[in-house]
């Protein structure tokens, strides 16, 4: 299929492995899905820190269930990415380990307190879910199918995250202050989650032209602000003065992008931030630690593991 045909036909769940897709489409879709899969892995690893920090058995249980979900999402997405025939799962995991694999900015910041749990589980996951709901209409069918299951599960994460925020903001004055301080620290990162404005986004135009994306970064960020700012305020959080949020003529909210630290964002997107090294390194060491499991599975597959081939 040539690019012109792809552009013409582009629509929700329009293309699949049976279609002969041009190189540029397959490369763009692989980049996007691999980024998404990597983010699920890195988010899951970050989140598991909270199991130890969680203040009650219920929270610990819910957190382990969430981590299990996220790692499962990564597996679904690596499979969806593999259907494009550009990279194997092993190659993508290797890239993540050696620092070439890219992932969401918010997962480059190591966490060390329970106050950070709702920042990830409510705001970051809530933002992710905004985006993921729109990806149910992506043009690459295996990606859309992965979204069906992921979105089914995510509602629990976001509600549990808000439940933690609510609990903290109903705690002692000191707890509320610590939560506010943590929010002040995370808020700019959360706003940058949606990436730079459309003008600066390199991959946005092509992704939209071929139906991989259906909504722009700006639209996602602004709809997120409209939904999550009232939620934050409802629980008693104050929105920091900077970056400035303003109301547009149509009543929707937007952020003054110049108030955000894009140098830090770009350092992160090159995996060169201090936290990037820490997060990538700690996951790599765990991948190496279970290398023997992968090796034994591989040797099993190549010896006794396969069922007899059906005659063609």
């Amino acid at each position, binding site marked *: 299929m040539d690019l012109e045909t792809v552009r013409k036909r582009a629509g929700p769940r329009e293309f699949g492995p049976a279609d002969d897709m041009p190189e540029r489409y397959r490369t763009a879709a692989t980049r996007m899905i691999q980024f998404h899969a990597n983010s699920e892995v890195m988010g899951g690893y970050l989140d598991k820190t909270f199991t130890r920090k969680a203040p009650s058995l219920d929270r610990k249980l819910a957190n382990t269930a969430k981590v299990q979900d996220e790692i499962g999402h990564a597996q679904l997405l690596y499979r969806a990415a593999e259907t494009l025939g550009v990279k194997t799962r092993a190659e993508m995991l290797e890239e993540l380990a050696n620092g070439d694999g890219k992932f969401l900015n918010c997962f480059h910041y190591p966490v060390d307190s329970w106050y950070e749990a709702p920042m990830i589980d409510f705001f970051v996951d809530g933002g992710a879910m905004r985006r993921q709901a729109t990806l149910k209409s992506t043009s690459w069918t295996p990606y859309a*199918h992965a979204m069906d299951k992921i979105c089914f599960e995510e509602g629990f994460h976001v509600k549990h995250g808000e439940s933690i925020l609510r609990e903290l903001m109903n705690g002692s004055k000191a707890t509320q202050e610590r939560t506010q301080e943590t929010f002040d620290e995370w808020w700019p990162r959360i706003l940058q989650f949606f990436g730079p404005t459309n003008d600066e986004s390199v991959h946005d135009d092509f992704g939209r032209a071929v139906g991989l994306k259906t909504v722009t970064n700006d639209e996602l960020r602004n709809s997120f602000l409209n939904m999550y700012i009232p939620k934050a305020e409802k629980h008693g959080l104050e929105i920091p003065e900077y970056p400035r949020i303003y109301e547009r003529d149509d009543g929707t909210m937007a952020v003054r992008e110049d108030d955000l630290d894009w140098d830090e964002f770009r350092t992160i997107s090159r995996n060169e931030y201090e936290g990037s090294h820490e997060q990538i390194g700690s996951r790599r060491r765990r991948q190496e630690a279970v290398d023997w499991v992968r090796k034994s599975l591989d040797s099993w597959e190549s010896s006794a593991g396969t069922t007899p081939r*059906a005659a063609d």
Partner: protein
Amino acid sequence: MIWEVFRQEAPGDYHEHVGNVHAPDREMAKLFARIQHARRMQTNSLWVTPREEIGEVSAEDAAFDGRTDKSYRWAMTYNEIDASFAEEVADSESEQREAARKRREALRDEGNEA
């Protein structure tokens, strides 16, 4: 030999199991699958696979995680939180509510039989 047949109605849909056919090889299986399952039904794509290549998990095994209280991992548990502010969160909750209802019913039916 027996081949299981999966039909996808329109592009973007899931391939769903629709039945099986006798056939000596893959090419014949595809032919019989077309005649049997795609001749009248709207079909975008068909898959055939040898039945012996399919691994099955029985109802008993599939239910292994439904016996203990795992309410902490359902959206409905956090009912102090209003999900209606975001359509996608509300959708996820209603899908989970439906899945939980089906599981509960299955468990209840099992209890009645015992």
